[in-house]
């Protein structure tokens, strides 16, 4: 009887055990290891490495110009990607929120990029920017924005915009889907009442739609910002961080250090900085929210 009772008490833990074991072994233990690598000299091909070196990696980071460039790029990459994805996604959601003939077909077509694997979106856009097979350089020349059909991705001044455009293309559907779901949960009679009271379209949007959407917007933007700041695939595929580290963001710089230079210690030190920055961002937002809620 006690064995049976013990089994009953253990039941919920048994259900969660497989998932928990997987996460601990593959994610949490490596996370701890990674943090400790940041303070050790860990190079894959150097059998003599492995010593504790304290803050040496971080001192090296301080004077690493490529790191500071990657930090600035992370801000531009994340800020531009999130704001463009959000604005265009909101417009698309508003357009799709009305009933009209052909809506189901349009929805299928405009959400399609969301299904494209990220490596393929990256390659696809890299090809579009390639003057040999892609139309974009030729169009830019026709528009007078470029003097001759060159590859945007090899111009250090503008190269980061290539992955940003690919990211916007790929991410609009995500925002549109989430915001459309939130829009459709707004009761229609509120709009009717407002219209009877003589509120115009803009007024209805400002005083009904926006307040209803605000919680969804806030949480989606917060989560997406963190996700995009960590999202290195498109940059690794389209520019490999080049030319000359000009398009490196922190996440892709970590990958480059680990994958190409096999310097796991230095890669982990950059990763620790990125983790701290994301934590600071999340805490700052939560503090801001607390202030706003209190003021209300």
């Amino acid at each position, binding site marked *: 009887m006690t064995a049976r009772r013990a089994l009953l008490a253990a039941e919920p833990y048994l259900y969660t055990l497989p998932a928990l074991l997987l996460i601990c072994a593959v994610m949490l233990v490596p996370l701890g290891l990674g943090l400790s690598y940041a303070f050790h000299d860990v190079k894959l091909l150097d059998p003599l490495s492995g010593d504790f070196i304290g803050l040496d990696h971080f001192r090296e980071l301080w004077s690493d110009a490529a790191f500071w460039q990657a930090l600035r790029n992370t801000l531009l990459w994340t800020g531009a990607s999130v704001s463009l994805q959000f604005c265009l996604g909101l417009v698309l959601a508003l357009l799709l929120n009305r009933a009209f003939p052909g809506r189901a077909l349009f929805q299928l077509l405009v959400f399609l990029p969301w299904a494209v694997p990220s490596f393929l979106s990256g390659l696809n856009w890299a090809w579009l920017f390639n003057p040999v097979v892609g139309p974009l350089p030729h169009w830019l020349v026709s528009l007078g924005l470029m003097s001759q059909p060159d590859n945007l991705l090899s111009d250090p001044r503008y190269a980061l915009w290539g992955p940003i455009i690919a990211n916007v293309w790929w991410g609009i559907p995500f925002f549109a889907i989430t915001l459309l779901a939130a829009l459709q949960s707004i009761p229609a009679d509120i709009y009717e009442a407002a219209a009877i009271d003589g509120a115009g379209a803009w007024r209805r949007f400002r005083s009904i739609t926006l307040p209803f959407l605000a919680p969804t917007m806030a949480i989606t933007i917060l989560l997406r910002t963190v996700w995009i700041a960590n999202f290195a695939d498109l940059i690794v595929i389209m520019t490999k961080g080049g030319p000359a580290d000009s398009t490196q963001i922190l996440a892709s710089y970590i990958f480059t250090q680990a994958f190409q230079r096999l310097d796991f210690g230095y890669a982990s030190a950059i990763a620790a900085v990125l*983790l701290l920055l994301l934590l600071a961002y999340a805490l700052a937002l939560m503090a801001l929210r607390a202030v706003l809620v209190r003021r209300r």
Partner: protein
Amino acid sequence: MSVARHTSKYWALHYLLLGAFAMFALFPLFWLLKVSLTPNNLLYSEGVRLWPSHITFEHYASVVARSEFPLFFRNSVIVSGITALLATLAAAAAGYGFSRFKFRGKHFIVGLMLITQMFPLVMIIAPIFRLLSPLGLTNSLTGLIIVYSAFNVPFASFLMQSFFDAIPKDLEEAALLDGANRFAAFWRIIVPLTLPGLAATLGFVFTAAWSELLFALMLNSSSKASTFPVGLLAFVSKFSVDFGQMMAAGVLALLPVCVFFVFIQRHLVQGLTAGAVKG
């Protein structure tokens, strides 16, 4: 549904904007398809025409018959398929536990799962390599399956939990009163009702595993154990002039996820709406 009658001017603008969105969404994929069908001699001579003067399936034929892509495709199907099964099983169990029980440490476990969703995954590329390498799990499909299963379990668990939450508890309790044990109740009553949810979770995990690049690149460098993304990227850096073949391979990589997408997309917004209304 809207109250005010809209003028034809409004609808012209509406369709114009939607048309622009559709063009932006579809043009890159159209171009992929176009180059994959363009014969090599026309690719350079005809420049950036929207459609070649005649088309060929030669690139597809050589990708299927004379390249390693069928092997990469097979590897990706194995990795993504088994990952989807494993992660969905573990997630279904965990989601059921979260949905049906209150127990000590539940918030802690949920918290651990949330943490895994927030930190940069590139951070653990190096440690995972060091852990798997002595176990012989680098350059192996098994290693990738374990890693991908773990990455997808947290999100899949929350997804499954939301599906279980939608099933009334009374159904199970009735079965328990009839003398079935909890497992039998789970298997005969809950599982059939969550089949759509299970299918969706399987699809999401499959798609995520199918698309993953960076870990596959780091862990599996030998071409025998390469997944499709790694193979395609290696092909691009080795034969960077054979655009027709690369894009044909790209179109083939798109097929499995597009099939899933067409099935799921009508339910995406509805499912999220139901969730939102329920609060």
